[in-house]
């Protein structure tokens, strides 16, 4: 049975129903062909509370890569599920796979733990031949997605979008509404990827520094000597500045709503219409940088939750994040939706057009990012750079602990901080000699954000707005701390417990009574780096996006449209170091992988601050199941509610969690191979 699908770029995409047996085939027949039609990505016209999903393997060929993909309804991605807030949905998931369990996890949804769909955690998985009924009330609205949490099926096709209607009319009404689900396609099995990476960590990276690339680096660094010094510094650390993505476009074809770039997925508009684009990163290992040349995008929601609109030219979407943007194309021409992978080894692409079948110009890919010492959490200094112009921040006392890296420098790579460098990794350095230099170089303790890619988009970013005067219930002081996640200086780090009082709370902040701090991670088999001076990178759009001349979204710009629902300050802080050994391809938290750790226990209704210190040189999208992660990004009570947060390399960030959902929950990096190699913890809310 051959069902040709949408085919615009010359390459056909074929699928054959195989291996399902008669039952599966019968079930497949009455299925409307809608999923194959040009409407892929079109939100279903009405919400439904009852769904029947069949998980099976289907032979699908995209970009000449044939895969017997585990998927729903013989299609990748699976159907868009449209729900209504306030409904109780029930979803029958039938596993027609021959001999493997499956599961569906509803990413970002607040629901009972038993419905969360992570095998082992309050849920047993769905064995072959069985049907499991998920049933839970829908208490939120916005753009979400679902994916398997079994056997790495999410990497091969078992994922799809969820759109939930709000109970009230949309404050951002749009004439058209599309889901844009980005993902990867490869005929290499994820097990093989992992096995190859265990043998050779740069197996899929063919953009390394070589003799051939030296002249260009020399030009960029100013001299051949400087370029060589930089290389030596990296090779001394036994790491690679070109390590951006573990798995790359060498084997991946990047998909937009299941369409390869040359299949050119189309969405229609009439000039002047407002079009909502619901971006979902359903990839397993790839961050995308998204832009629509010629169109301004108005970011109106992040991870399903409304934010104050931010006009941008571009934004980065980490694995598992979602962003709703609104565009208003005024000309009757084709606009290219261009989503390049962070490592620039490929892109997903689609077209917004007034008529079907049009295509716009495809921009060239940007240069691939190169990691710097900022990513190592060292300091602002590139290896080989001189120490001239080194300055100290004002809170010199913290420097005595700088080797313990607990100190977060307010550092925005640019703005007022230019030229500020530290020698913090030299604990024996005579600190007395280090004085603040000119005020321009001295960061203010209160760390007013100095966002860089703003241009009018940053309403609400000045100090006055940090503590919104008007809102009723947030304790005015309780949020002050978000402006200075700088303060934390646990005595444990100093190996002199008790010698130092815990850091004083920020003005008026209720105390964090307990700090769960593992201290700096050990350098061991599972961890190869310590970020001695992690920085606040919330104001940075991310590696490769700085200074590119476009307005690129950063986390500081996300401001919820309403104040948080839990105004209590946290009574506990849990510090998690993101660690790993790229060379051995082991990932984890606090220098330990999942199987060597215990769970994180939260008390019911406890208010907790999670602080992430990224000691690795990669981004990690950290996802907590079942509860919101309220990012402390300087927006006071209007902090954005997220389910997945990118922790940038060498950075430190914090977010608040209200542990109001009892049960066992997953907490992990959403790069699938990082999760599977240990960057996972069980969170128990008791």
């Amino acid at each position, binding site marked *: 049975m051959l069902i040709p699908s949408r085919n615009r770029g010359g390459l056909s995409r074929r699928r054959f129903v195989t291996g399902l047996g008669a039952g599966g085939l019968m079930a497949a027949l009455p299925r409307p062909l809608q999923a194959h039609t040009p409407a892929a990505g079109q939100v279903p016209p009405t919400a439904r509370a009852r769904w029947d999903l069949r998980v099976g393997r289907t032979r699908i060929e995209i970009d000449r890569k044939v895969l017997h993909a585990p998927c729903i309804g013989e299609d990748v991605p699976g159907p868009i599920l449209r729900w209504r807030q306030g409904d109780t949905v029930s979803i029958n998931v039938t596993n027609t796979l021959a001999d493997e369990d499956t599961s569906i996890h509803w990413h970002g949804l607040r629901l009972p733990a038993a419905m969360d769909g992570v*095998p*082992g*955690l309050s849920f*047993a*998985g769905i064995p072959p031949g069985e049907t499991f009924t998920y049933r839970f009330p829908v208490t939120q609205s916005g753009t979400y997605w679902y994916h398997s949490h079994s056997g790495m099926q999410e990497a091969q096709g078992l994922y799809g979008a969820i759109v939930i209607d709000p109970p009230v009319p949309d404050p951002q009404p749009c004439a058209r509404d599309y889901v844009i689900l980005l993902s990867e396609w490869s005929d290499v099995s994820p097990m093989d990827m*992992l*096995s190859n990476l*265990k*043998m050779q960590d740069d197996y899929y990276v*063919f953009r*390394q520094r*070589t*003799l*051939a690339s030296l002249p260009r680096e020399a030009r960029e660094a100013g001299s051949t000597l400087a370029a060589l010094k930089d290389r*030596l510094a990296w*090779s001394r650390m036994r790491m690679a500045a070109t390590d951006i993505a573990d798995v790359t476009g060498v084997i991946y074809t990047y998909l937009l709503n299941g369409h390869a770039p040359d299949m050119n997925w189309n969405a229609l508009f009439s000039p002047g219409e407002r079009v909502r684009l619901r971006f979902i990163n359903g990839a397993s290992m790839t961050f995308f940088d998204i832009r629509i040349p010629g169109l301004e995008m108005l970011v109106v929601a992040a991870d399903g939750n409304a934010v104050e609109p931010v006009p941008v030219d571009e934004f980065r979407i980490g694995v598992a994040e979602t962003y709703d943007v609104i565009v208003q194309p005024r000309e009757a021409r084709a606009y290219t939706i261009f989503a390049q992978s962070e490592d620039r080894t490929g892109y997903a692409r689609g077209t917004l057009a007034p008529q079907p079948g049009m295509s716009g110009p495809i921009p060239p890919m940007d240069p691939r990012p190169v990691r710097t010492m900022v990513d190592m959490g060292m300091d602002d200094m590139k290896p080989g750079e001189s120490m001239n112009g080194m300055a100290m921040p*004002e*809170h*010199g*006392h913290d*420097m005595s602990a700088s080797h313990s890296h607990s100190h977060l420098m307010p550092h925005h790579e640019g703005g*007022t901080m230019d030229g500020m460098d530290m020698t913090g990794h030299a604990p024996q350095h*005579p600190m*007395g000699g280090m004085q*603040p230099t000119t*005020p321009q170089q001295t960061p*203010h*303790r*209160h760390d007013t954000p*100095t966002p860089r890619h703003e241009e009018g988009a940053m309403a609400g*970013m000045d*100090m006055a707005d940090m503590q919104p005067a008007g809102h009723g219930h947030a304790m005015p002081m309780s949020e002050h701390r978000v402006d200075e996640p700088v303060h934390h200086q646990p*005595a444990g780090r100093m190996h002199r*417990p008790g010698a*130092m*009082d*815990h850091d004083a709370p920020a*003005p*008026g902040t209720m105390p964090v*009574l307990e700090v*769960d*701090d*593992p201290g700096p991670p050990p350098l*061991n*088999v599972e961890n*190869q780096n310590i970020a001695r001076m992690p920085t606040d990178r919330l104001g940075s759009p991310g590696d490769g996006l700085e200074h590119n001349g476009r307005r690129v979204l950063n986390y500081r710009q996300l401001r919820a449209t309403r104040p948080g629902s839990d105004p209590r300050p946290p009574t506990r802080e*849990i510090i998690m170091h993101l660690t790993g*050994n790229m*060379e*051995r391809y082991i990932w984890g*938290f*606090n220098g*330990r*992988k*999942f199987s060597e*750790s*215990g769970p*994180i226990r939260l008390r019911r209704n406890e208010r907790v601050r999670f602080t992430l210190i990224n000691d690795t040189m990669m981004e990690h999208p950290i996802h907590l199941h079942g509860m919101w992660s309220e990012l402390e990004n300087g927006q006071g009570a209007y902090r954005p509610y997220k389910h997945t947060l990118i922790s940038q390399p060498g950075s430190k960030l914090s977010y608040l969690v209200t542990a109001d959902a009892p049960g*066992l929950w997953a907490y992990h990096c959403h790069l699938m191979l990082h999760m*599977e190699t240990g960057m996972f913890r069980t969170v128990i809310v008791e």
Partner: protein
Amino acid sequence: MRRVLLLAALLLPAAAPPAQACSQSQTTTTARKTATTAPRKSLPRPVYHAADAPTNAPVAYVGGMKPVMDQGRYFHGILDQLEGRYAPGGTDFRWDGEAWYGGDYNRLWLKSEGTLEHGRLHDGDHELLYSRAVSPYWNVQAGVRADIDDGPTRTWGALGVQGLALYQFEFQATAYVSDRGRFASRIEGSYDFLLTNRLILQPQAEFNLYTKSDPARQVGAGLSDVDAGLRLRYEVWRKFAPYVAVSYAGYLTQARRIVHDQQGESGALRLTFGVRSWF
């Protein structure tokens, strides 16, 4: 906004002058912090521990199912050298490879190398080692080595380190003690210079040292032999890379005299062609 920042930056150091000196005591630090903050109550001392520390109360996973597979075991083998070494006097054939099975910490290694020269197998060296990861880049290996070729067989106990040295040198050093109470050691190193992402120049060298001579195996006391190569490989795919090389195999010091006395060839530089491959 920038102006506000500047102003604040100017004012703050003045507001808290003692904080600048690092020699300052902890109490002063606290006092200074307090000075910049609102009046504070005395607080219970915070508790420090890792939230994810292993506990004695293991988590009850449904059906014993672990949510991730971080204890996976893998099996890989690599033939670093599989090559013909050409010389007017005849062609030598050489292999050098290893395979391992295991997880992140514990692995079982099988290593093998040997040279076929004029129809005669020598330098046959085979090891079975247990390997334990001990640091970010280093593994300790222990096991047995058997010299099996057309010469007399010798067996050794082996203990060594293997890993990635600074600047990404692949390095291994192993000490051996034989069943006859002799000692030996082997040091190997290699480095990959990327000319392009697929064209890679790899200098490599292996040295063998012995405490006592063993003329039947062309072994001399001290630095006995060296096998080195400069290989230029092209990675058609990661797992398949043909190469051209110049290789040198030769005997040194006392072993050189032993081989000379046996009318053997004491060393030769050869043009070499081969394939590096792994699975």
